[in-house]
């Protein structure tokens, strides 16, 4: 169930610069991003939110060019936003309405006629799992419901790409899972690209296939998650029911660095391309593994490494 025509690239920027006073928030960003589930990472103040804001015309571009869905942002902003959705990080909504009226209004603002807007508003509220709360005023909503409402208003006009800024902020674990599953299904099942900006690397790991890391206004990394993880193969988190000390001793004998984590798991750097050598060791020790998770912190390590390199560079 994919839309009839997907633009070949979702985001294209060329020497994009954004300067706030004396600070270069974006310093010559060059990107060419294909449709997909994209994770946008970076330290605070790095420029990720600024990039999103420039693409959505929430902040004017200082120099360079940016194209969203193949169209120039500066010139065709309004038309582009008919096909773009956005969930801001902070609490945002239009006051004085109940949930379903709000989503209907948002659909109309994106150009849907009233009947279609009303129908789709309720369909999207069903999709995000909101029940009768849709008939209550938005001020009475809990954090979880507000996040769902934000997602509903972002997709009600059937966009081609949705920008999500910290979508799981303030949610409890169940809420986080539900929102992440919804966001993940947008690309995997319905072909709507998602750009997720988050500090929670585990969330990004779960749903994104492409990763962009921005720091100090520059793009440090732009690659698929698979390739990034492949570079970090060679470490694994091992869960055994008993015998951690035995395993640790054996790893030390193999000269594999080994660390006991607080959750009772063992982090082993086996330095191999696959888990087979580690499994062979476990077989030898007669220690059945309950779980062996490869490159558990691949994204985190990539992130830290990229930042260190950027600090080292002039």
């Amino acid at each position, binding site marked *: 169930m994919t839309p009839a025509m997907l633009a070949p690239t979702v985001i294209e920027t060329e020497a994009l610069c954004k300067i706030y006073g004396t600070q270069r928030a974006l310093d010559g960003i060059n990107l060419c991003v294909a449709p997909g589930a994209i994770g946008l*990472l*970076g*330290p*605070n*103040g*790095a420029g990720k939110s600024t990039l999103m804001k420039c693409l959505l015309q929430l902040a004017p571009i200082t120099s360079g060019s940016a194209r969203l869905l193949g169209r120039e942002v500066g010139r065709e902003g309004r038309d582009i936003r008919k096909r773009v959705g956005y969930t801001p990080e902070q609490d945002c909504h239009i006051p004085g309405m109940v949930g379903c009226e709000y989503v209907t209004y948002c659909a109309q603002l994106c150009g849907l006629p009233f009947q279609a807007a009303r129908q789709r508003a309720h369909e999207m509220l069903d999709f995000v799992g909101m029940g009768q709360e849709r008939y209550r005023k938005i001020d009475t909503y*809990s*954090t*979880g419901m507000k996040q769902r409402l934000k997602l509903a208003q972002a997709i009600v006009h059937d966009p081609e790409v949705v920008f999500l800024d910290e979508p799981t902020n*303030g*949610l*409890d*674990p*169940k*809420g*986080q*899972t539900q929102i992440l599953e919804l966001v993940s299904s947008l690309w995997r099942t319905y072909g709507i690209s998602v750009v997720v900006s988050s*500090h*929670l*690397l*585990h969330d990004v790991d779960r749903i994104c296939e492409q990763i962009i890391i921005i720091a100090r206004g520059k793009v440090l990394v732009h690659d698929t998650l698979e390739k990034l993880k492949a570079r970090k193969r060679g470490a694994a988190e091992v*869960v055994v*029911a008993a015998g951690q000390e035995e395993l640790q001793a054996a790893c030390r004998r193999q000269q594999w660095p080994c660390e006991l*984590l*607080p*959750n*009772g798991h063992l982090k082993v750097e086996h330095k191999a*391309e*696959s*888990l*087979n050598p580690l*499994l*062979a060791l*476990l*077989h030898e020790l007669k*220690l*059945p*593994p*309950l*779980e*062996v*998770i*490869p490159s558990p912190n691949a994204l*985190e390590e990539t*992130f*830290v490494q990229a*930042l260190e390199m950027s600090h080292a560079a002039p």
Partner: protein
Amino acid sequence: MSAIIQARELSRWYGIVMGLNNVSFEMEPGLTGLVGPNGAGKSTLLQIITGQLQPSSGRLTVFGEAPWNNPRLLEHLGFCPEGEALPRDLRPLDWLRGLAYLAGLGRQEATRRSEAILDKVKLPREHWSKRMAQYSKGMKQRVKLAQGLLHEPRLLVLDEPMNGLDPLGRQEMAALLKELAADGVSILISSHILAELEALCKNILILNWGRILASGSQKEIRTDLKHWSEELSIQCDAPEKLARCLFDAGVLQGFDLDPEDGELRIRVKDAPVFYARWTGLLLESGVTVHALRSQSRSLKNIYDKVTT
């Protein structure tokens, strides 16, 4: 080891609304994580521990004493609440110094300690001269942590301490908390980010609907949950081959193949028998294994099972 916090049949009611209902647990020294859905009673529990609320019935002791109306005990407690309630027009050093004076320190000592604490929480010096209204969320979190540590408490209570921090900041804060725990400070962290608690805390408290559902180390809680479905997922280069091999060995009850992703999901008949042969079967099949995952091992799965 003696427990830092002991709760015995602790209850707290707000009129007819239940905040906590008959909660009993013991918190050991070290890092403990407190999890629960929104409205579970975590804030109520934290407020009772930090002496802001009195229990309606039962008792809660910290270091053997009740925290309510007990300034002497509160000297050993540090609390970093969730919101961003920092005085907007002050600079961090001024604020910390003021708090240090309140704690009874002299001027020089107060200044020395405030600066040392700000360095410890890694607030960059170039931001010290700005007023806190201009701070980002991450910087405010660091200042909050600083005020909690200023008087060198023995128990530190943190409510969503990593909120707003970028991944580096989270790493730094996690490292700092581990350092503090190694120094002998007990830390209670309330958070929604299970992955971080899993990596940081040995012990977990799970609350829901004002009741305590689980308390103890992650390993103990896992062992206690007996009715797991033994489901595994294996990522390898030839899932069909592995499936055939396991099927021939007669250990499978059912399986699901996903050849595109290279994933095989299996359900096993008899867990102890299966696990005894597991590594052998894997190596015999000759496939290259990339990942072995179980549906029921992470803190997230424990949480899901316990809170449904």
